[in-house]
């Protein structure tokens, strides 16, 4: 009479974490990028302020210089990962129709990749002077 579920110990069920085999990655990546975003955003704002009064040639040269370009690339990467997770949470919270939810989650990934790669393209173009 004993069902197979009794064979599994509570520990095994916790370690198994169900069919998804995961669950905290999104939470963790949101915190990881949140921590990274703090210094990167401060650096990006400082870079922006120092560029405000300058002409295009100077802005292009400074943004394309190695240190500034690498900081801006890290900024764009960390921010876009963070905003993709954040928007996914908003969609999952408010959109309950399954097909609309999946469509918006897809659109979210497409948008974040597009805007992120566009920004990366802009930085690399300045760096390599293409």
């Amino acid at each position: 009479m004993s069902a197979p579920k009794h064979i599994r110990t509570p520990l095994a069920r916790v370690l198994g974490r169900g069919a998804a085999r995961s669950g905290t990655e999104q939470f963790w990546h949101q915190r990881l990028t949140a921590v990274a975003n703090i210094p990167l955003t401060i650096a990006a704002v400082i870079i922006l302020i120092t560029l405000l009064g300058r002409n295009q040639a100077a802005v292009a040269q400074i943004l394309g210089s190695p240190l500034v370009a690498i900081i801006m690339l890290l900024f764009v990467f960390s921010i876009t990962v963070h905003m993709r997770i954040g928007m996914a949470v908003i969609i999952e919270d408010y959109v309950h129709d399954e097909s609309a939810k999946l469509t918006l989650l897809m659109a979210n990934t497409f948008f974040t990749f597009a805007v992120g790669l566009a920004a990366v393209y802009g930085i690399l173009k300045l760096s390599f002077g293409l």
Partner: protein
Amino acid sequence: MAETRSLEARTPAERPLSPHLQIYRPMLTMMMSIAHRITGFALYFGMLLVAWWLIAAASPNGYARFQWFAGSWIGRLILFGYTWALIHHMLGGIRHLIWDTGRGFGPSEREWLAAANLIGSIAITLILWIFVLLTMGGS
């Protein structure tokens, strides 16, 4: 087993439901929670401006167009809102990171953190803009 599951799906358990937003009296901590989500939502689309700025920097014509937008009153308004949203979301994020360590949940602490979040974001935004406008010579 399958029958039980489909029955459960058709008649959800009579669990107590959490009251929705309009039931509660508006409180600062609640408002800052909502503001954190709204600023995050706005910043998501604000990234388009960052991408435009970075791409525009490569060409004189493109940069002139971006500068025209950034200098217009609507551009200034958007950038001012962007600055506040960015600072507010960052301070709100720091608040969340403090909570993640298990601290800051006390009644006075969370009120203090919410107030610091709002006052800090407004103060830093104004200081940044005053600094930038002064160093750029007005206009």
